[in-house]
């Protein structure tokens, strides 16, 4: 509690009340209440969201129980619903996206904050922030008209002929599929990683760099061994922000992933994600069980996000205690 010196003395009010009135006069208490309201509204929305998803998915929860998470069939005709292919598609496409986007994004952020002249850095950052604002359907269109044909005609045959002995690069090549989905997602989340990581790197105190340089480190050594570790937590936060975006992405994914709820080891094979199937099937889902199964998928995606964010927290806690303190 911020304690302002109490000057007003009145009989009949307790000390606490007087303090409250005093703070009210200074605006502290008002600001406190307003910000508290803002913060609690987030909790209220989240709780309401989960409650609604939970209530409206009663039928499939009772019918399938835990089997919903491990079921591999999605058959609206016979009313048999399982979420596993969608969970797999969501997690695998997001993981693939991170695999591509993290080195690219962090590398670009290091260049922009440490190595590039500030004029170039600022103008490039502007372009990157523009990219983050492009609607996802545009990424999907670019994916379907530019990326997919290139994948089918050039990239996938090349991967098959060189790395075809790996199970990842086998089977028929359609262009659309897990690989296309992961790559489009990667392109979409790179701007987030670059933008946030660059800010974090720029926030590293100049003294850190100067100290490293004074000890005889080269520019790159100071960047890689001092600045980047210092900013590690922030960089990781940018990655998790990007991951959250990838997990929930709908439009761009559904346009290129092939929309087939099967689990295949090959990256060439079509797959399906949770957000995509909900968006695709919700409008025409007529039966109660069918509709509620889609809502339960929403609940599953929510749980998945919580789980992954929880893990992210753990990683951040573990690394901050061990390594250098950030900020």
């Amino acid at each position, binding site marked *: 509690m911020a304690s302002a010196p109490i000057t007003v003395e009145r009989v009949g009010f307790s000390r606490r009340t007087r303090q409250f009135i005093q703070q009210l006069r200074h605006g502290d208490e008002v600001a406190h209440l307003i910000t508290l309201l803002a913060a609690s509204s987030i909790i209220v929305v989240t709780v309401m969201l989960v409650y609604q998803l939970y209530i409206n998915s009663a039928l499939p929860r009772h019918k399938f129980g835990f089997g919903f998470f491990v079921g591999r*069939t*999605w*058959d*609206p*005709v*016979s009313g048999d619903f399982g979420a596993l292919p969608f969970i797999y598609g969501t997690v695998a496409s997001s993981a693939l996206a991170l695999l591509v986007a993290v080195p690219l994004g962090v590398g670009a952020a290091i260049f922009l904050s440490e190595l590039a002249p500030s004029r170039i850095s600022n103008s490039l950052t502007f372009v990157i922030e523009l990219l983050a604002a492009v609607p996802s359907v545009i990424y999907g269109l670019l994916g*379907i*008209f530019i990326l*997919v*044909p290139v994948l*089918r005609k050039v990239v996938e045959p090349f991967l098959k002929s060189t790395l075809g002995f790996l199970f990842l690069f086998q089977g*028929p090549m*359609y*262009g*659309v599929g897990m690989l296309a989905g992961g790559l489009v997602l990667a392109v979409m989340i790179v701007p987030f990683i670059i933008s946030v990581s660059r800010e974090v790197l720029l926030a590293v105190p100049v003294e850190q760099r100067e100290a490293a340089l004074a000890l005889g480190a080269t520019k790159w050594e100071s960047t890689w061994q001092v600045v980047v570790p210092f900013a590690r937590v922030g960089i990781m936060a940018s990655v998790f922000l990007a991951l959250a975006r990838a997990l929930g992405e709908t439009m761009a994914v*559904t*346009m290129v992933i*092939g*929309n*087939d709820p099967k689990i295949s080891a090959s990256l060439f094979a*079509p797959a*399906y994600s949770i957000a*995509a199937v909900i*968006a*695709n*099937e*919700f*409008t*025409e*889902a*007529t039966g109660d069980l069918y*509709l509620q199964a889609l809502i339960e998928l929403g609940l599953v995606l929510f749980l998945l996000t919580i789980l992954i964010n929880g893990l992210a927290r753990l990683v951040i806690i573990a690394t901050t205690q061990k390594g250098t303190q950030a900020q």
Partner: protein
Amino acid sequence: MKLKTSITSIALGVVLAALGVCALVESPSAAPAPPALLLNAAGATFPYPIYSKWFTEYNRIHPDIQINYNSIGSGGGIRQLQAGTVDFGASDAPMTDQQLSQNKVPVLHFPTVLGAVVPTYNIEGVNQDLNFTGEALANIFIGKITKWNDPALASINSGIKLPGTDIVVVHRSDGSGTSFVWTDYLSKVSKDWETKVGRNTSVNWPVGLGGKGNEGVTGLVKQTPGAIGYVELVYAVQNKLPYGQVKNSAGAFVKANLAGVTAAAASESKRMPADFRVSITNASGKAAYPICSFTYLLIPTKIDDPAKKNAIKDFLHWMLTDGQNDAESLSYARLPKDVVAREIKAIAQIN
């Protein structure tokens, strides 16, 4: 000081914005007489172009009646009708008995126009129209026929040199009336399909890639050599896609056109039940195109507000008579005459 200025400017901005919104909202409705009656409807996306034309034109003839249509999909239309949030709904597939039993007020089906679904494909070196049988289509979509030069296809396409490439099946990934008609037809012509897959707005597809919407399916088919998919006739015609002829139950190979679709409905009209809930796929008759269906307006039998009731009844009558003339210009097939006559009689059931 600075804070005060910014607060003032924000307040000013809010007031100005509010005024602007008011002006925007008021100006269009203030100029013509405000509609005395606003009807809300929601449902199928497939007939949206013609419905929107009908509702605009009807509003021109009756300026006091305005019909607001939300094309949110058949499923949404049925749900909103059941919840009572719209005055009437629209659906591509007729409601099931179970859905009908969930309505507080009985619901009538009024067919409005007809649509057809055609197989479209992309085979290198083949520019002619291919022939398909229902059996062959079912086997392709179930994954039994995997090469274009399969004997089942070669035997009905004599004179066309089919390559030995793999067939890539493309289906709709979003739930749609188009998928319902397609799977309904495949269920009728193939026992295998009926037992393994069945009919619905979306099904558990045995093979293939999913494209979102007609445009998604078309995009995939156009890009993928050896692909076959299905799209609405309207869409295939407007985008000049190649599409095949399908063998009807009379044994003739028919290329889909609006007359063939109306013929299919006409040939089935005798065995049509009183509530019009009928599938007309695989219709009999030499000229009938076998993969087509009605699309429906769903009207409650009891409408409490007399003004709304009369407006809906009058609109239905207009839609079945003058309105039908708009169908062909928008690539929908018009209703056969005797179906129109029966529907006009059915309007009397609304009270």
